[in-house]
């Protein structure tokens, strides 16, 4: 904005209050991770202590490093799930934006309806159907359902329509490139910025998902971090000493995503209604 405006103390105060409210739990978990289990419930909430590294060691030693396995699993679920989902969305979005074919309108409307389907109706029948295939309690049970993202397809269609000029597709075709080569060497690079957004959306959705893995998995060695921490908290009800591990585990679990957010901020400027990305 070019006009210089008067600074408003009220606007500053409100924004800083909002920031404080949002940072409070994060600040607390940082401080609480440094407390011993006795101090957690006795010393002043925001008074730090010196047990951070003991707590890390306890957490890392919990059942031979089970916690790190959960983190690894989460990276696998979110990383592979989001990557495959992005590729599938890109292909579908490209087809819907740049080709004309019978049934196109129907396909697009069905996918749009899919955006509004509440996950609740899916979780239990998905579990039963995968159980019939003997696939529950495996990595596939969490990965396969995360490969499809109607919202990702919707976004990819908008990005393909906006970022891929038809003339370039024609030129590539006249040069003798096949449809798949054109897609791989021309279309994907042009859609790159938009696809990062699709990837991030799906990555966060899978990383934060609780219900699907909670239903699908029985073996705690396959858990993602959300289900693992939920289990730890339940144990804490009987062994309060576990609470320090829960708190430290919560801190460690949010570091990777916060880092991802801070480094990839510009990809988060999404206009839901128009679907465009202002990078």
């Amino acid at each position, binding site marked *: 904005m070019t006009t210089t405006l008067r600074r408003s103390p009220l606007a500053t105060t409100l924004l800083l209050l909002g920031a404080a409210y949002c940072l409070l739990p994060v600040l607390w978990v940082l401080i609480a991770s440094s407390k011993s289990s006795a101090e957690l419930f006795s010393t002043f909430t925001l008074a730090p202590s010196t047990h951070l590294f003991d707590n890390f060691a306890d957490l890392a030693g919990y059942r031979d490093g089970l916690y790190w396995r959960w983190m690894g699993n989460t990276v696998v679920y979110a990383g592979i799930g989001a990557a495959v989902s992005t590729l599938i969305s890109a292909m579908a979005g490209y087809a819907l934006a740049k080709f004309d074919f019978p049934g196109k309108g129907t396909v697009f409307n069905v996918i749009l309806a899919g955006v509004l389907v509440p996950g609740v109706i899916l979780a239990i029948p*998905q579990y039963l159907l995968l159980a019939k295939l003997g696939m529950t309690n495996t990595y596939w049970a969490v990965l396969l359902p995360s490969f499809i993202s109607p919202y990702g397809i919707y976004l990819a269609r908008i990005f393909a329509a906006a970022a891929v000029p038809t003339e370039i597709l024609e030129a590539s075709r006249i040069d003798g490139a096949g449809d798949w080569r054109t897609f791989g060497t021309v279309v994907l690079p042009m859609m790159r910025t938009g696809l990062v957004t699709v990837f991030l959306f799906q990555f966060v959705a899978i990383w934060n998902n609780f219900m699907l893995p909670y239903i699908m998995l029985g073996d705690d060695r396959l858990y993602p971090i959300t289900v693992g921490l939920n289990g730890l908290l339940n144990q804490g009800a009987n062994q309060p000493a576990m609470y320090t591990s829960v708190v430290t585990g919560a801190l460690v679990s949010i570091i990777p995503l916060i880092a991802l957010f801070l480094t990839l901020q510009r990809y988060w400027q999404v206009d839901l209604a128009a679907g465009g990305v202002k990078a």
Partner: protein
Amino acid sequence: MSLITTAAPSKPATPAAAARRRPAARRAGTPYAFLAPALILFAAFLAAPIVYAGYLSLRKVKVSGLGLGAKSRTEIWAGLDNYTRSLTDPDFLPSVGRVGAYGLIVVPTMLGLALLFALLLDANRTRETVGKFARISIFLPYAVPAVVASLLWGFLYLPRVSPINDTLEALGISAPNLLSNDLTLWAVANIAVWGGTGFNMIVIYTALRAVPTSLYESARIDGASEVAIAWRIKIPIVMPSLVMTFVFSLIATLQVFAEPMTLKPLANTISTTWTPLMKVYRDAFARNDLYAAAATSVIIALATFILSFGFLKLVGRRAFNQED
């Protein structure tokens, strides 16, 4: 934005050139090939489960004889029995009431705050560093999974941990227990507001940034206050974004599950049927009654559809820009 792209390939100038650079043929099957993985997965993990849930909701198990042996239990059609059972279950209506109240607290508060912060950021009346710091801080909770958010707030609610209790007690005031019966709903709602405000703020803020400033420069020169500009010009322009954030928030609200499930070990006021989705989980996995669980999920899904489409109809908008 154009949708249709097939044009006739330009003819090569000479036969020799045609042999060297023959345009790749455009086969009719190509778009279907690109769509195939999405359509197969859509059928397997969205369409089939919906059909299967509908089917299960109309079935029940008939036990013959003493119910011993594999053949004494057979699955038969149940008509609408499961729906009647779900709707008349004494735990169901209270859980619906709770989610209704929860939605009435969460959605307006969250979107109201998101809009307020977005407008404040857009009005550019603070130092740039303050704006940037606030924007990142308020967005940060989106990176925290609901389970972890509930865990953090859950501890902060515990009277022995809560800084609010410490402060109030130091002042000699007895602090309320946030996980008591009356306040649990607010405690859970706060977690959702905390987690969702930043994301919605970014969506609205992005829409505001796309508005050409010339639209309100003249109003400003005419002496209109920032509040009047926000109310008369900016909010109407970002209305489509507000509508969509409302619909997505509504869908998420009706499915609240992770927050109460995580708070449960810390708060004995949260029952196993505290929300409708928790009841679905209990019926399916603790009681092994898949039929009741399927019927309840169908009811929740239908309610979600009716509410979201009803709302879109009410405000006279289609769900998405189908014809862009």
